[in-house]
């Protein structure tokens, strides 16, 4: 018997609205009011400037290792700007600009990367999960949140973030599969920044796109120019609207580039060529969107200064925090401390009262151990 062609025929679309010079395909220009365009740019700039400031703070030893976002501002701000505050955002660990947009106070991000779990505590009523570090493990959480929202009859949409490396993890695929079967209101945003630490996309997957992975699970998948905030916004708007109207999940692949390091402990010169980085610098999302706004006469004077002042004020508040009370670690292990944890707390409290607690030891702290991807010596 001859082989027959089965019905499903797939195609993956690619969406780009602004070219690398900020020139517009006007037929695709989203209908966004000037105030919204200005807000998008400010959100991206705030992400970029905070990132730069955090790198300096890290180099000075005032915060620990973190994952900078430089180059990915459009993917993040373009995506979360389509959510309502009552929707849910599920980040991985490289979503500073998205988190700022969602209302995380700047000093909380600084606290988080200075080792205070308080920095990971969402504000009351803020529907965001804290940063998740083990790759892709947060994606099923987004599906569960979406199931719960649907179960309760709430109007909420859930947006989850992960990177290209995460698409190799089982949790990513299990989550997409569950979302497809359950038909829940979730949008999976993959920031394909081309590099999972030192491993390039071509060693990560043999698929031509990440977007097409959605098709195997019966979901629509769309690839979008991740350095074009208008394209990301338009694609995510469509996906969020689809989710909210009961038409199920979508995968959006934002094709972008990590212009900087994987984390502040990484040295990318070991694994990628300067020419590659330079080529992507020409597609910098801030430059492109800035040129577009310039033409529309929407670029505000003094914006960088106002953003920097906001950051400086947050750094000041952060630095006024002082030393944490070690006993704080016993507050949120359980709803009620079991007797053995209570006894351990009392043991540490007694040490602290006697002055032989960790306060004295802190001064002689050994250097932090390396994080995932960190090299312990310079070449």
């Amino acid at each position, binding site marked *: 018997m001859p082989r027959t062609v089965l019905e499903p025929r797939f195609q993956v679309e690619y969406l780009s609205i602004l070219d690398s010079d900020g020139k517009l395909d006007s037929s695709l220009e989203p209908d966004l009011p000037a105030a919204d365009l200005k807000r998008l740019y400010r959100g991206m700039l705030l992400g970029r400037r905070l990132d730069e400031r955090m790198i300096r703070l890290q180099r000075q030893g005032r915060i620990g290792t973190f994952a900078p976002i430089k180059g990915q501002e459009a993917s993040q701000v373009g995506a979360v700007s389509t959510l309502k505050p009552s929707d849910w955002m599920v980040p991985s660990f490289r979503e500073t600009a998205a988190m700022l947009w969602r209302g995380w106070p700047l000093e909380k991000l600084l606290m988080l990367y200075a080792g205070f*779990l*308080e920095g*990971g*505590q*969402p504000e*009351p009523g803020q529907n965001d*999960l*804290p940063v*998740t570090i*083990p790759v892709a*493990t947060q*994606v*099923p*959480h*987004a*599906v*569960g*949140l*979406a*199931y*719960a*929202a649907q*179960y*309760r009859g709430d109007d909420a949409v*859930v947006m989850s973030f992960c990177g290209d490396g995460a698409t190799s993890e*089982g*949790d990513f695929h*299990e*989550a997409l*599969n*569950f979302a497809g*079967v359950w038909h829940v209101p979730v949008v999976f945003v993959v920031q394909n920044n081309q590099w999972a630490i030192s491993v390039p996309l071509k060693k990560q997957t043999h698929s031509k796109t990440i977007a097409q992975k959605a098709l195997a699970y019966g979901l629509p998948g769309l690839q979008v120019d991740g350095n074009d905030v208008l394209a990301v916004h338009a694609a995510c708007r469509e996906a969020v609207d689809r989710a909210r109207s009961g038409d199920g999940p979508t995968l959006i692949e934002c094709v972008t580039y990590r212009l900087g390091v994987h984390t502040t402990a990484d040295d990318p010169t070991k694994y990628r060529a300067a020419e590659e980085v330079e080529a992507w610098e020409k597609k910098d999302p801030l430059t492109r969107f800035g040129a577009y706004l310039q033409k529309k006469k929407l670029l505000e004077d003094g914006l960088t200064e106002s953003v920097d002042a906001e950051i400086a004020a947050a750094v000041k508040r952060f630095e006024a925090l002082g030393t944490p009370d070690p006993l704080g670690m016993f*507050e*949120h*292990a*359980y*709803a009620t401390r*079991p*007797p*053995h*944890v209570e006894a351990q707390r009392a043991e540490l409290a007694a040490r602290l009262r006697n002055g032989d607690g960790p306060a004295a030891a802190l001064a002689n702290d050994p250097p932090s151990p390396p994080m995932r991807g960190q090299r312990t010596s310079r070449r």
Partner: protein
Amino acid sequence: MAKLNLVKALNLALLQEMERDEDVLIMGEDVGVDGGVFRVTEDLHRKFGSKRVIDSPLAEAAIIGAGVGMALYGLKPICEIQFSGFAFQCFHQIENHVARYRMRSQGRFHVPMVIRMPYGGGVRALEHHSESEEQFYAHIPGLKMVIPSGPRNARALLVSAIRDPDPVIFFEHKGLYHAAKEDVPDEIETMPLGRAQVVREGSDLTLIAYGAMLRLAREAADTLAEEDGAQCEVIDLLTISPLDRETLVASVRKTGRAVIVHEAPRSFGPGAEIATSIMDGAFLSLEAPIARVTSWDVPFPGFAREKGNVPDLARVLAAARETLAF
């Protein structure tokens, strides 16, 4: 009051909690139409529908991962892992997230989830269907680890686990599912988590066990009373973590001797923590070294050899007599 086996008693707990609280839902492989491979969720799908009794795709990590999301939203998912031997495909979700969300979010979120798993050997089953792996969960801060020993306490403990604001790993011994029937009251009963029970009082030796091993401890106590004239106190642990050190210590202060029986392999198993806790609290009362009767430190040897691996009455008696004679 009805005579129920463990399966029916657990089913009753699930039924009544689901009737009481719309936020309680069940998710797992074959838990819906099929009623679970051991029938613990039988009929619940018919009563509550497929939105509340979810036949999920076959993927442990997403069962627990999606359960985390549901719990963060405010629901109370009861996730069934079909056999505890398969839980390592979701162990990262349990360790990385279920146990830590309260801490990571500094109390903004918590995960009021129950993860039920059949565990234990002696049922002539294949590899991954016969192991006792409670030690992994008992070791993780942020979790509670519960193992009932019979229908009545299983029902009450499951109700308490569902109502507990913290995540609970709930092990059900496969060998107990149909082993014995007990009177289980119709009205909802709870039992505090973190409390052991003295199920037989005695003055000469403390026998500590849980799950299917409790029956061995009771039998050993009967035999020792009859044949040796020794009075054993028997403690049913019920909750492995947090461990009820107070009850253990009080008993050994009285008896001066202790034998711990568990099905998990010996090294770094619950017996090590139990013995240390007794040493901490009752060192000066001890008349003999604390003995452990456990499975050996080998991977599951296949059920043809299982009888030599899982503790039996003869091993418990031998350890008890050695301890009494020390």
